């Protein structure tokens, strides 16, 4: 039997077709990987890599703001040229703005928490003791909110993956950057797979 026509579903499909290129996944994962990959080199040879610490650790973190610009550029050359140009409804634009606002709020909260930690020893001790659990929870919350606002279901999976990896790292005493790198690798592979599928579908 034919399903009833749903305007919400039509809008959702149009929006999702624009975001099945995996570019968001690739840029997000590369931002994570380039920011934390330096820790591996540092762990391999602390003496050798202390000299180039700035290049392998600080430089990628300092250029993290470049990824949104790279994302927009890639979107134009990969997606717009294949799928055409579209302006989504104001409601959808508001949801996209809400995602950016959410990241801003998280930044502000992190800044406030960091400031409190500077003056309160108990709070600092609590943060250090539960660092991985807190990161896992924030990661899960962020990914889930992005998934809810954007309707991109795979972000729910990324959220669960984040929580599981960080909680496992907490109980197995694994360094904090390893779950981040593992998560980045999974998201990168997913993004590349989606991009290949997208390019095959729209050559």
């Amino acid at each position, binding site marked *: 039997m034919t399903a009833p026509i749903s305007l919400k579903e039509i809008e959702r499909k149009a929006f999702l077709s624009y975001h099945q290129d995996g570019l968001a996944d690739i840029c997000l994962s590369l931002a994570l990987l380039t920011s934390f990959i330096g820790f591996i080199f540092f762990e391999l040879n602390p003496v050798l890599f202390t000299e180039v610490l700035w290049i392998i650790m600080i430089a990628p973190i300092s250029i993290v703001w470049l990824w949104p610009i790279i994302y927009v550029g890639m979107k134009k050359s990969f997606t717009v040229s294949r*799928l*055409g140009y579209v302006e989504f409804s104001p409601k959808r634009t508001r949801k996209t703005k809400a995602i950016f606002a959410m990241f801003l709020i998280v930044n502000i909260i992190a800044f406030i928490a960091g400031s409190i930690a500077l003056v309160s020893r108990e709070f600092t001790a609590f943060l250090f003791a539960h660092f991985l659990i807190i990161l896992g929870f924030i990661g899960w919350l962020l990914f889930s909110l992005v998934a809810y606002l954007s309707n991109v279901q795979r972000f729910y999976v990324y959220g669960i993956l984040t929580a599981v990896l960080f909680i496992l790292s907490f109980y197995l005493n694994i360094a904090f950057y390893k779950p981040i790198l593992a998560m980045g690798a999974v998201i990168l592979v997913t993004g590349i797979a989606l991009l290949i599928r997208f390019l095959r579908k729209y050559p």
Partner: protein
Amino acid sequence: MSNPNLNDTDLPKVHDFDRLIHEPARLTILLHLFVLKSADYVFLTRQTGLTWGNLSAHLTKLEEAGYIKIEKKFVERKPYTLVHLTVKGRTAFRAYQRRMKHMFDGLDDF
């Protein structure tokens, strides 16, 4: 009424349907334009599955009726032919939606 077997009490309002919207290809186009702010030809062909020529012909009819507006626009120095629904088109689509709903909501099984 063209069919002598039909009258207003037998099938009320069937003949009042907006035939311009009722055509499946045009209805698909309008459904998409209703939920988007604007889209270019490439996006509409991808979403509706219509060929370039077919889409162009239907868009011309909708534009002639004043339901949509087609305009050339430069977005970051690139030219795009953007299509968007006019107020008249939005009102006509809403009226069509209400009429269809009203008509079939009361239709019982036989």
